[in-house]
């Protein structure tokens, strides 16, 4: 379980100080699929970065079961990310000079996962294993990014606008791959998006505005990627 209490985060100092998170509290249950919705500048991506240990919070506590992430130093955070977290970004951030196989291996080696090629197969890229990122389409690159994140067997997967740079068809396909793998592997998933329709796929939906959580609700029935409107 992930427990976040009264988290504050601001950038800049003096007159240019901008408080992005203003006392955010929430709880994420193991195996949950949480979607954080919000307009641009609502603080949703910052919240994701802070919860996942990419950025330190100014105030507040973040706990993963009995591990207090908010009081960890840089080395401890690196170790924590290695053991717990997987990331999928909007811009993919694949390593351009390595092929698909090696990009996925980047995640797999951290978890000692020798069977990472099964993950490449699971995202439908077995045939393109030796291709380089620039030889792939946007959707394929994002699927590599999915495989890379999952090959490290994370307990929690964080996704920052994973379909933001994709067209509708590819976006649906990528979401479907992610949800299928989530059902198989059972990890917790926290996704940031501005696409309200994607929220229908989640267990829990959190809506943010101006650095605060303004609404939280649970879906009684989750839709699939092909059932939602786009």
């Amino acid at each position: 379980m992930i427990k976040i209490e009264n988290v504050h985060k601001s950038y800049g100092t003096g007159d240019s100080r901008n408080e992005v998170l203003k006392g955010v509290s929430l709880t994420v249950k193991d195996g949950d699929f949480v979607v954080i919705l919000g307009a641009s500048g609502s603080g949703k991506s910052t919240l994701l970065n802070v919860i996942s240990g990419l950025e330190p919070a100014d105030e507040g506590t973040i706990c993963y079961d009995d591990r207090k992430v908010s009081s960890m130093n840089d080395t401890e955070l690196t170790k924590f990310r290695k053991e717990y977290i997987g990331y999928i970004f909007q811009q993919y951030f694949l390593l351009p000079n390595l092929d698909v196989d090696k990009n996925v291996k980047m995640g797999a080696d951290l978890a000692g996962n020798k069977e990472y090629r099964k993950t490449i197969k699971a995202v439908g890229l077995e045939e393109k294993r030796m291709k380089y990122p620039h030889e792939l389409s946007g959707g394929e690159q994002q699927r590599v990014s999915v495989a890379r994140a999952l090959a490290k067997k994370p307990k929690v997967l964080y996704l920052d606008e994973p379909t933001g740079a994709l067209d509708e068809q590819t976006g649906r396909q990528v979401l479907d791959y992610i949800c299928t793998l989530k059902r198989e592997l059972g990890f917790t998933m926290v996704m940031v998006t501005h696409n309200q329709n994607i929220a229908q796929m989640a267990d829990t939906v959190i809506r943010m505005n101006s650095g605060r959580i303004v609404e939280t609700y649970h879906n009684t029935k989750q839709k699939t990627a092909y059932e939602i409107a786009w």
Partner: protein
Amino acid sequence: MMYEYVRCREEYGMIISFKDVFKMIGILIVSFCAVFVCTLFLNYYIDITSVEAAITGQMARIMYEAMRNTAKMVSALSGGCLLLTSVVLLCFYIGHYVDTHKKQLGILKALGYSRFAIAKGFAVFGLCVFAGAAAGYLGAHLLMPGFYETQNAEGYFPPFDATFHPSLFIALAVLPAVFFAMLSIFYSYYRLRVSALTLMREAAAVKVVKAKKETNMPFLTELRKSSVRQRKSLVFFITFAVFCFSSMMQMSFSMDELASVMMAVMIMSIGIVLACVTLLIATTSVMKANAKTITMLKVFGYEARECAKAVLGGYRPWAYVGFAVGTVYQFGLLKIAVEVVFAGMEGIPEYGFDVPAFFCTLVVFVLLYEGIMRFYGKKMERFSVKEIMLD
């Protein structure tokens, strides 16, 4: 597009800003060293030749010839070697500049600036060479009285003063500056040969050197090999930096015995400065080129130590190759100098491989190289995820 245009106009009022020229500190230092050494020895060569008629004794004549030959050899070798280094460094820098500013340069071309109009802005790089060369020339003249005294410590020659030769200033400072300015124009003109659209498209594209065959090594080993494969030019710079360090340090130890302490200190200083500057430029380039990779590795949970090993470790074997080649080179060069240039002269000690100098240089090299790599490893710890997110 409009914003880019305004930005280009601001940024490229002169195409290249003084800030960019300042970044070429490596070329400035190499120019300084080259002109410093050449001025010292060529000025001495001209001045000692002017008193040739007054040198009569047999030993004095032999010493006179030896001094002239040394001056010629040192000027040709160090000048030639450093000139070549400057040319390579300059081309590398211009190439890097064009690569990292393709979008802006493409916009300028699209707006109607001719290829030559853009390329001529690169002439400002010649200023950097001139600054280094002029400083080297001045430095050599400041040191000259002491140098002349040392060269005539045995009193073989009649006393003579260092004189100012304007032709030397033109040959060593003005002409190289003009040459480098021209080289900058022609090389950038060549690099800008593609169309505006291609330039802008290439800005987004990534050049990748693919692996020749499929391997099954651990990820970090794959990354280490790939990093070196992508930037072969940096292999040259790192090998060259260590080559300079190895050869000049060991040579300076032998020079103490074969020539003078002053020569030894001079060679050692140039070796250290040249090696450090080249190594720092190359390593900074490696770091910049791999900034995103390092950040992603850190995001996924790789430690800074592992990142450093993967990104910088691939160059280590080449550094040791540079050291070995430098050792062989300096031994061969001094052997030739002693057995050919100073052949038949009395008082010249027999030259053999200096084992203590080799080990001493090796220890200093290992400490220095590993220290620099550790410094960059520490720098990697400060890479933030925010940087790539905002990119």
